[in-house]
């Protein structure tokens, strides 16, 4: 019941304010456009790239949430990997269907995030980055050592989430599933990040000492940020392990550096610590890298990364605060400034 009430309230506030809040309008339009994209007659290969975007964007948004609490991790692939291996192991040894293994493996991720968040309490800044960098490397070693974990090949032949669908529909279903994953994670993380609790995370990012002086238990909130972030990254990993895009298996690839580093790249590109920035970043990244350079110009891998890096450099010099952030701030300028009283009244109604 409270959920329905909340949804209705969100809906009314959304519809009444959508026309005078340009960023909201923009988000709404892109949501509609992206959900209609598969009907525009695009080939399966393009659809696969879009599915990849959805996974990457989920990872990047969850990484960005962690950064917003002042903890830049270099090993976010860990949660992606744990999510995938969790669901794979639960299937292999207990034979549960995906609908049970995915939530369970998300729970495992939450546990791991709790442990890592706790062990990282004493380090921050670059030291935290280096410590977190080690975690996926360690897990890769563990995974490659034990035959029970499938060694290099990983655990294969996991069941599909929608087993009965035909080839084309399967990809469509996967697109919508991952799109929902991305959209819902982004919306939830955005809501948390821009709430009152979210203000505490930014306070920790800005000045940990001053936050302590404000009577805030900084350790609790730092671990909380790790858990929330790990939950969504783990969910992405668990769904990826059952997807055709990742060949329906859990392998050491999930733990490779690209899943730690590309989220960082796209976040910087789109605007770090904004939550919506990585979404922009992922689409820009894929648009340039996969569509323009690879498909249209047919450039080989090595030259492509060289060209791509130079393009990124130019973009970052032009928009150092991130492209997404610049766009959204431009949109916000169009908005009529509101009186503080009006905002207070609106908040008063909610509380």
């Amino acid at each position, binding site marked *: 019941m409270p959920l329905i009430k909340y949804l209705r309230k969100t809906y009314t506030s959304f519809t009444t304010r959508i026309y005078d809040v340009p960023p909201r309008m923009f988000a709404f339009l892109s949501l509609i456009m992206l959900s209609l994209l598969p009907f525009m007659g695009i080939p399966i290969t393009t659809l696969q790239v879009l599915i990849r975007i959805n996974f990457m964007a989920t990872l990047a948004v969850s990484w960005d949430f962690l950064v917003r609490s002042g903890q830049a991790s270099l090993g976010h692939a860990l949660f992606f990997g744990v999510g995938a291996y969790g669901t794979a192991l639960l299937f292999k040894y207990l034979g549960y269907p995906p609908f049970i293994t995915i939530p369970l493996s998300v729970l495992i991720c939450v546990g791991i995030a709790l442990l890592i968040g706790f062990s990282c309490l004493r380090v921050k800044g670059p030291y935290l980055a280096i410590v977190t960098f080690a975690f996926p490397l360690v897990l890769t070693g563990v995974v490659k050592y034990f035959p029970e974990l499938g060694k290099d090949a990983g655990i294969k032949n996991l069941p599909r989430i929608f087993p009965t669908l035909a080839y084309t529909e399967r990809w469509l279903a996967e697109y919508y599933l991952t799109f929902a994953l991305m959209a819902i994670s982004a919306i939830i993380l955005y809501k948390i990040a821009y709430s*009152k*609790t979210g*203000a*505490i995370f*930014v*306070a920790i*990012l*800005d*000045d940990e*000492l*001053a*936050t*302590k*002086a*404000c*009577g*805030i*238990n*900084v350790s609790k909130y730092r671990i909380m940020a790790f858990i929330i972030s790990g939950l969504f990254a783990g969910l992405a990993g668990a769904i990826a392990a059952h997807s055709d895009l990742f060949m329906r298996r859990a392998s050491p690839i999930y733990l490779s550096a690209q899943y730690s580093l590309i989220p960082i790249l796209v976040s910087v590109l789109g605007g770090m*610590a904004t939550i919506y920035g990585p979404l922009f970043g992922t689409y820009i990244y894929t648009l340039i890298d996969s569509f323009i350079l690879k498909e249209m110009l047919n450039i080989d891998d090595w030259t492509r990364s060289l060209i791509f890096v130079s393009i990124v450099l130019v973009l970052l010099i032009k928009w150092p605060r991130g492209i997404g952030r610049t766009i959204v701030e431009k949109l916000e300028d169009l908005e009529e400034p509101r009186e*503080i009283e009006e*905002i*207070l009244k609106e*908040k*008063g109604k*909610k*509380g």
Partner: protein
Amino acid sequence: MHMLEVEKLKKSFGGLVAVNNVSFIVDEGEIVGIIGPNGAGKTTLFNLITGFLKPDSGRILLRGEDITGLPPYKIANKGLARTFQIVRPFRHLPTIANVLVALQSHRGKRRIEWIKTPERKAMEMLEDVGLSDMALEPAENLSHGDLKRLEIARAMALEPEIILLDEPFGGLNPVETEYMIKSLQRIHLDGHTLVIVEHKLHALMKLVKRVLVMHNGEVIAEGAPEEIAKNKKVIEVYLGKAI
């Protein structure tokens, strides 16, 4: 029972004894000033009391309760707030959210009357220090004087019983100093106990009834401002020995 009791507090960094056997008492409703030349150990003393540093020996009692060695956030929640010498705002947050952070601590939450939303309460705190016009402005756009006042508002959001102010007049122009004195006087009238570390003796003397003088980590004199100004030891410390 005393509001704050510091007993034989000692802290050394390597060979340097920053705070050496400092003992003093602050009673409820007092305004106490702590002065001393640079490097006298005033800020270290504050850091020890608020839990940012662990003392080597000695005890700190807040309303008779031992708070020595507790983490800073717990001490803040017990009603001992502090401000910083160099302003430490949350630069990426709007001014109002700076206060909202403190209002979400255990103590801050407790003090929100049921009819008020935290936002409204935060707005009141800003009005008290005259920052309500800047509520939605990011804190990084505020001037130094405004940030000093924001520090006060943030500390007040904890509804503390005692506030430790580290150089509240530092870097303020005469008009802002006058405003700050008035704000502090009002806070005092509301029943809060204040401990102020300050270099601007002129401003400080208007506020306090009792002054402690620190030098090389020790308290060398204590008394009313007029007495202190005549104290031979104090003059020696500040101006050097007469030849």
